[in-house]
Structure formats: structure tokens, C-alpha cells
């Protein structure tokens, strides 16, 4: 562990951030707050109280509003993304952990972990349109860029559930490896990438057949298989590289999309959880749950260039251009 910080420390010495000015919001599960970070200055600007146990965090497509799932208060809060003043509460159902926003219509899909349901919310009207039963402990959730599908991963049932957005019905279920945590669509909406925390695996699902078409088991030298627990993941917009946070293995795997191989392992902080791209996708930010910091990765050099202390148990990130 000590070694890990030394490496990151060295990176900080060579610190150079050439990206656009932007703001990174980090939800802090145990501080009941969000951290506001300026990645250009490499500094934590402030911490803003938001409610009990904030986890899922995302911006509206126009970046005007910030939504935070405040799990223990059983609501999702809407903030003005510039001033961070609270605007409204959304009725999210019990224990909202994660949610996904539709890219076109004003719909929000919320995982209600305790109720084995997905709530569909009309963001403007602040009403629940419907609830869709899924497997036990739904967590990861994503909407396809073409707005046709919502996919939900249930951690205990070990399935990806496919929900059609046109009528909010679950039409298919794909059995995946144990404890699927996070999932994401590729930019062309043709694939869903899913991580299995317990099997240490990445699975690629075909959106047409709903079948697993490719798999990748992660291995890290000097780290036992049990510590390799993939969670947050992203595929870049050109579908060239994907990035997978490996949880307590303290690394982010850089994956070549074309041949599904690991190009590089980047040592970040302890129990790296969720990740987010900078608006220009030149940088990657990671929330490191147990070392209470956020790493900045330069994606051209594939190097960790900075780590910034943000608060207790950073969970998720949202980037405002």
C-alpha cells in the first residue's frame, strides 16, 4: 500500500494538466457531502453537505443540474450545478443507490436496492411513472445512447435485466457471473459491458442477442484473485479503449477494445470504485473509496498524474464542463 502512494506521489511531482477547465463533483458516502474539485488546479475547492449517504451522482445532459442519490434519506436531490443550491427532491423509492438519466427525454431510472425494483421517474414532474420488478439488489444501471434500452444489473440474482424504454417492460434477462456491479453501453448502443465483482471478470453482452459474446478475467501480478473485484467501468466514445476500476486491487485496467486485452494496469488509490471521463475524454478521474482521494489519469500518456484528498469514502463522480 505504501508503495502505491509513493508511485502516485512521484506522478504528482511531474504534474501537468492540459485539459479544459471543468469541475468534478465527488459523492462522499460517509461524509454525507459532495466534494467539489478543480482538476486544473488539482485542488479540492469545497465540500457541500447534501444528505445522508450520498452515492449515485450525475449531471443533466445540459449540465445545468446535478442529481445526487441520498440513499439513507430515500430521495434523490436536484441541485443547481453552478451554485449547488438545492432545488427539489425526487421521489426515488427506498434506498436509491444508483440511477441513470435518459439522454433525450426527461426520465430517470433508479435502482431501489432494498425493493428489487427499478423506479422510472419523470424528472420535471417529480413523479414516479412506474416501478419495474427486477432481481435481488439491483445496482448498476444504464440507458443506451439511442435511448432504446435500460439495463439493470442485480447483484444477488446475478443477472442483467433488459428493459424497453418505450413501454418500461422487462423483456429479457441475461445470467452473468456473480455480483455484477456496474454496466455501461458502448457509444453505438450495440454492446453492454458488465463487471462481475466476485468472478473478477468483464463480460461483453450483445444488445441484439442479449448474450455474452466476450469475457475477460483480470489478473494482477502479486495480487490474489480475490482482491481483484472489478466495479466501475467506461468505454471511450471512439470505442478504442475501456477502463475498469478493480476495487481492492487498487488499480484501473486499461483495455484495448478491439482485441479485449489489458494494455496496462494503473495503480491508483485504495479500493477504487467509480470512474469518470473529463469532458474531452483526455483524462480519467477515479473515486478511491478507502484512501479517501481522487486520482487523475492522463489518458494520452496512460499515467496517474495526481491524487487529491477529497473526503471520507468517495463513491461516484460527475464532471461539469
Amino acid at each position, binding site marked *: 500500500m505504501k508503495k502505491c502512494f509513493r508511485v502516485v506521489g512521484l506522478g504528482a511531482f511531474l504534474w501537468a494538466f492540459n485539459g479544459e477547465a471543468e469541475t468534478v463533483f465527488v459523492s462522499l458516502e460517509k461524509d454525507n457531502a459532495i466534494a467539489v474539485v478543480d482538476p486544473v488546479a488539482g485542488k479540492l475547492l469545497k465540500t457541500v453537505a447534501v444528505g445522508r449517504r450520498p452515492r449515485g451522482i450525475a449531471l443533466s445532459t445540459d449540465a445545468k443540474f446535478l442529481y445526487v442519490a441520498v440513499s439513507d434519506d430515500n430521495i434523490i436531490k436536484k441541485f443547481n450545478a453552478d451554485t449547488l443550491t438545492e432545488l427539489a427532491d425526487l421521489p426515488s423509492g427506498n*434506498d436509491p443507490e444508483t440511477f441513470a438519466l435518459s439522454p433525450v427525454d426527461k426520465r430517470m431510472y433508479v435502482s431501489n*436496492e*432494498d*425493493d*428489487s*425494483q427499478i423506479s422510472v421517474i419523470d424528472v420535471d414532474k417529480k413523479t414516479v411513472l412506474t416501478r419495474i420488478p427486477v*432481481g*435481488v*439488489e439491483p445496482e448498476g444501471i444504464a440507458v443506451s445512447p439511442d435511448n432504446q434500452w435500460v439495463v439493470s444489473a442485480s*447483484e*444477488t*440474482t*446475478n*443477472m442483467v435485466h433488459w428493459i424497453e424504454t418505450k413501454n418500461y417492460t422487462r423483456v429479457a*434477462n441475461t*445470467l452473468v*457471473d*456473480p*455480483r455484477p456491479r456496474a454496466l455501461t453501453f458502448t457509444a453505438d448502443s450495440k454492446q453492454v459491458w458488465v463487471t462481475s*465483482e*466476485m*468472478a473478477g471478470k468483464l463480460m461483453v453482452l450483445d444488445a441484439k442477442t442479449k448474450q455474452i459474446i466476450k469475457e475477460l478475467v483480470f489478473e494482477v501480478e502479486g495480487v*490474489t*484473485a*480475490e482482491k481483484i*473485484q472489478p466495479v466501475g467501468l467506461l468505454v471511450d466514445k471512439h470505442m478504442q479503449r475501456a477502463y475498469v476500476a478493480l476495487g*481492492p486491487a487498487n488499480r484501473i485496467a486499461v483495455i484495448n477494445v478491439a482485441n479485449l486485452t489489458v494494455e496496462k494496469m494503473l495503480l491508483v488509490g485504495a479500493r477504487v470504485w467509480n470512474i469518470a471521463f473529463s469532458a474531452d475524454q483526455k483524462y480519467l478521474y477515479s473515486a478511491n473509496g478507502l484512501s479517501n482521494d481522487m486520482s487523475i489519469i492522463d489518458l494520452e500518456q496512460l499515467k496517474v498524474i495526481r491524487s487529491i484528498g477529497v473526503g471520507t469514502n468517495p463513491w461516484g463522480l460527475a464532471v461539469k464542463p
Partner: protein
Amino acid sequence: MTFTKQSKYLWLTVFIGLSLFFVNQVEAKSTVKPASLLTVNIAILAQLDKPAINLSIIDPVVLDKGELGAELAIQENNITGEFIGQSFTLKKFIVPANAHAETVFNEHIVGKFNYLVTLLSPEKTLAIADLARQQALLILDAATVDDSLRNTDCRESVLHLLPSRAMRADALGQYSIKKRWHRWFLVVGAEPADQLFAEALKRTAKRFNIKIVAEKQWSHTFDARKTAQAEIDVFTQIEDDYDVMVVADEQNLFGEYLDYQTWSPRPIIGTQGLSAVAWHPTHDLWGATQIQKRFKTQAGRWMNEQDYAAYLAIRALGEAVTRTHSSAWQALKNFMLSDRFVLQGYKGSALSFRAWDGQLRQPILLAAPRSLVAVAPIEGFLHPKTELDTLGYDAPESLCKRKE
């Protein structure tokens, strides 16, 4: 007992027969099922203990054993099953303390079920395992912690869900090494089980080069509840200094009284104080909060170790059926003992069974009454295959001679 709307809905899919306790109204409602429905029938055999006397008024007296954990798991199996055409039933056989579990087994279980979750004493578990020899029956033991049942008395058809005493003692040993508690003062209760835990602790001490500077037996010659203050001072005054007092009191008959009353101010670990357990109400890591809440909503109390073990037993079967698309007991058993089997158990590592003795590989929680202190294996205790096997009897040490 109150149920949320959702859990009521879940109950519809669950068949519960012969439930003498916590009988709930299960409405009959036909749901559309896929054509090729695979049904797995599981029996649970529990024998009630004679009610123990609780030292503290805040501890609830829990009479049921792990049945409520099994019920939660059956519901979860059925939610998954509904998506892929598999269904699970649970039939409960609950035997009074003075009755013969063997009779119930012979009359109602053997030949009728392939899967049995037992919540029995070590003696009864062994007796049932012997009756099940040559039978198509997989036994999932959700109650015993005995090392003998995992070594010389091991049986091929038995899987053990709870960590053995040796695993618990090793967890305490690893943490002691981390904290540099190299000198133990061992205090052992009068029950036979306490002797067994003391033996496990001595094995650990030897493994980790911990010195047991003194060992004393608590004799119960007086009512500890009344005269503890004076007696414990005298009892714990020993010549040598020690780092930590290690208690073996599995029935919780006196151990709670030691803390703050010892002659020297030293922490208490073992069965009281900092204890090594499979599950604990303070555990909230790795998504444990979710199952803690689910269980509490349904059962009206915290989940205990046996609930957790019975939950895992049935989830393990569910996972095996889901992955193999089979309900054939030999296929499931082989799969469960293979390295392809992984079970999620809210403890940060994938759980699996040790092929050499049927013991579930799992992290062990080191918990104080109000906080989770550490989780073993402790970082730095290495193993060529899996660090989980630094706890308890590893393959080369095992005295279990299973055929496979």
C-alpha cells in the same frame, strides 16, 4: 411480524410446509412460468436447544435457529429462478429438544429429498450424516463449528457453512500478531465446547508463535452474576504479565463479566469482547447493509450466525442450480466442490468450498459488541493459493479422508 408490499409479493413464490414457527399466510396464486420448470426441493431439519439464560437483559432470547435465514434465501433463489424457469421449495422439520431428530429424518427426509440443511448439535449432525451414507443426499450443515466434523469425523456428503473453531482462533491469532499481542492469558469455561475452543486457540498460538502465559478454568462455583466484582479480581491476578485475555465461553455464561473487572487492565478477546464470528449486526461492509435490512424487515430481529449459514446453504444450492441448469444432486455436489463455484456472501471475497473437508472458505469478522474491528484474513498473512486458506485446516494439515 410486518411485511412490506414487496416482501408479501415475494412470499407468493415460496412454499413453506410444516412451519411450526412464524407461519405466514401464503396465498395461492398461479404465476406464469417458463415451460421447462426445474424444481429443487430442500428440507431443513432443526432441533431446538433448551433455552439458554442470557446474561444481559438487552440480548433477546432467540428460539428459532437459522430457519429465517433459509426462508430469505429461498425467496431470493426463487426471484432468480423465476427468470430462468427454476423453482425452489423449502420444507421445515423442527424437532423439539427432547425428541429424536433421527426418527424424523428416517420417516420424512431420507429418500424424499436430495438436499438437507441441518441445524443440529454436532452429535446429531454426525448421526444424521451416518444415516445418510449411501443415500442420494447432500447435507449442508449450518450449525456446527467443530473441527472434528471437518477432520477425523468428516463425511463425504456434508458441507459446513459456519467457520470452524480453528478458523476463528486463527482469525484472532492473526489479529493478535498484527497488534503485537504476543502473550495470551487463556480463560476457559467448564463446558466441553469451551475445551474444544481452547484447543483451537492453543493450535493457533503454536502456529503464530504466541505464548500462552497462563491458562485458568472458570469453574462456576458461585453465581457469577452476583459476586463477579470481587471474584474476577482474584481470579485474574496472575504472576506473569500478558497482552490480552482470551476467553473460551461459547455459551456466554461468564465471559461478558470479565471486561473492566480484570486485575490488570487488558483487552478481552475470544468468545466475548473482540470475537471471531461468521456474521455480526455491526457488519455493514460490501453491501452487507442490504441483507441486514432485508433480514431485519422480514424476521423482526438481527441476523445471527446460524441464520447467515442457513441463508448461504440455500443460496449456494441456488447458485449451483442456476449455473449447472441441473437439479441432479451428484452434479450439484461436484460443481459446488469444484473451483468453478463462487458464492457471494457479503464479506468482500468470493466464497467457495474446500474440496478436502467441505468447509466453506470465508473471511471471518472480528467484531466488538458495537463495532466491526477487522476482517480476517489480516493483510500480510499470505498463502500460495488463496489467503482465505490461512484460516483453519489447510489441505496438507487436514485429517479428513474423503473419497473424492
